[in-house]
């Protein structure tokens, strides 16, 4: 990786303690949910592809708390955290990963295809860049219908190389659509470091070239993310599309099939010193908003939620084979 790794996030947290604790709790919910998923993958309960977001939790957390329930979200295959924080119950997410009928996509989508109409969570797209045009369309519909909502579109740095990215940027800017493009730059597309696949690694420069507001944010700092996402939402609502580059890092392999041999362990260790959860906890402790006891309490509550989700998924049922063609339009 060519970009130097900045020092860990630090400094005062400018929120009332309840808000800070809520952010911390959300990050922990994603982390513990996914640690459990990794374990269940090993046990064969979850199959297929499983892409963990571990290390990147501050992005979904800070961003989702800047959005409103009326807002729409389009995400990628690394979307467990986004679905959870948009409001999809952990029980239904876990059941989906088990392939159970009680899952948020009836067990038909699995880890990469979480959907939930009620919370306006539009997936769960496993084609890199596939969500961007969709988000443009949500923005178009909202604008044409005069609805006060923003569409947040999450995608990775790798997607920026796709034609779909560039076509979507142009369309959104041309028509001034209320879309927030949230790029989760973890500096790798699978095993390829960004400098090996982008001629221009300044991603904001690309978005800006379409005449769009664009700015980078430290994606390991939940405060910076939250403030950046609030600014982005306001901008999208008031004057059209915005691009935010959240600089983050995945601590785990790309997927459960990835032996992770393309990056130095020391790079991972260095990024771990910037881990979003422990750095944020330390800052809260430093200003007296959190004690170790309280942290352990929260963690135990989260563990309870995860256990309940697993129990729910275990108790779930399999969709009958006779329903295979149900909801196929024009079979």
């Amino acid at each position, binding site marked *: 990786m060519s970009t130097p790794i900045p020092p860990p996030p630090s400094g005062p947290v400018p929120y009332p303690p309840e808000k800070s604790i809520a952010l911390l709790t959300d990050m922990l919910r994603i982390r513990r949910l996914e640690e459990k998923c990794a374990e269940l993958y090993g046990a064969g309960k979850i*199959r*297929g592809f499983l892409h963990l977001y571990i290390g990147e939790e501050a992005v979904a957390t800070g961003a989702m708390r800047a959005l409103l329930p009326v807002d729409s979200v389009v995400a990628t295959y690394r979307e467990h955290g986004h679905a959870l924080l948009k409001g999809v119950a952990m029980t239904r997410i876990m059941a989906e990963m088990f*392939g159970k009928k009680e899952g948020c996509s009836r067990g038909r989508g699995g880890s990469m*295809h979480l959907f939930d109409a009620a919370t306006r969570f539009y997936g769960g797209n496993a084609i890199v860049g596939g969500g961007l045009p969709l988000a443009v369309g949500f923005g178009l519909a909202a604008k044409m219908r005069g609805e006060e909502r923003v569409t947040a579109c999450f995608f990775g740095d790798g997607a920026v*190389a796709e034609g779909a990215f560039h076509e979507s940027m142009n369309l959104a800017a041309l028509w001034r659509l209320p879309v927030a493009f949230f790029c989760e730059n973890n500096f790798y597309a699978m*095993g390829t470091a960004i400098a090996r696949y982008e001629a221009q690694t300044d991603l904001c420069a690309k978005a800006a070239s379409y005449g769009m507001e664009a700015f980078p944010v430290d994606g390991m700092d939940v405060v910076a993310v939250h403030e950046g996402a609030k600014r982005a939402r306001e901008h999208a609502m008031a004057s059209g599309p915005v691009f935010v580059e959240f600089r983050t890092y995945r601590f785990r392999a790309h997927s459960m099939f990835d032996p992770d041999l*393309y990056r130095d362990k020391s790079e991972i260790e260095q990024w771990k010193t910037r881990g979003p959860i422990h750095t944020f906890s330390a800052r809260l402790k430093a200003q007296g908003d959190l004690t170790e006891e309280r942290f352990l309490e929260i963690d135990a509550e989260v563990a309870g939620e995860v256990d309940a989700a697993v129990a729910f998924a275990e108790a779930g049922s399999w969709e009958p*084979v006779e329903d295979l063609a149900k909801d*196929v339009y024009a079979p």
Partner: protein
Amino acid sequence: MKITYREALRLGLREALARDERVFLMGEDVGRYGGTYAVSKGLLAEFGPERVRDAPLSELAFVGAGIGAALGGMRPIVEVMTVNFSLLPLDQIVNTAAILRHMSGGQFAVPLVIRMATGAGRQLAAQHSHSFEGWYAHIPGIKIAAPATIDDAHGMLGAALADGNPVLVFEYPALFETTGELSAEAIDIAHAKVRRQGTRVTLVAYGNCVPKALQAADRLAEEGINAEVVDLRVLRPLDMDTVLASVRKTRRAVVVDDGWRSGGLSAEIMARVMEQAFYDLDAPVARVCREEVPIPYARHLEEAALPQADKIVAAVKGLFQ
């Protein structure tokens, strides 16, 4: 020498790169990562980054660049990670690679090989489980190779490069761990092959359905039905001579197709059998296809959606009722 299907693919690539300086491999994560299915593992170290070239997530551009490079005097092997992502460069494949030779009045042949993984069966859900090789076989101007054996996994690439025109080679992750002897037999991309001799019914299959057809044939043999299995190997152009010779002998046929039924490859094969061997048949031709649904994640639903040996057995028995 016993090797895996994956090793056979890798050996084919290594030989192609060693044989001809103009050959290079290009695609996402083919180099440092070693290929998403570890097919190209070790080739970067052996041939260097000029010839084992990692490409961005820009399928439309690098497939098109493969066409341009082929016209410009190189012999590119472009890897599209999986068939699912080949829908992005579909325009370049259909509107340029397949058409150019004819539309330029024969001036520009495109000596390009595009490799991609295909098929379902690993609970990867709808967007990662397509089987479009039969669909690509709809297009004049490209050859479609579907290696189902160790020898074909090894040899079809070389045959495709020697062809001097666009060839799509479909690789089957479901078969990557299968092992077999590598023979010295010459491999073409022109003929279907009888993989098992039989007398009472012909099972026509390709790719990952060949082992399923062979498995079904084993089970049918236990019940006294001696099935012949024809591996199409090449989906375009179709070698109907081999299929028809078998059907004329057995007088019954079941087509096994990993693709969807409507307008699919199975329909084409059935139509040709009907056109050319109708009076040799003792029963209507039957077929076992992928159910007409997007492939679901849940294992039991995915299994139900795909061709399986028991469905083939049932279809064959249906011909004898």
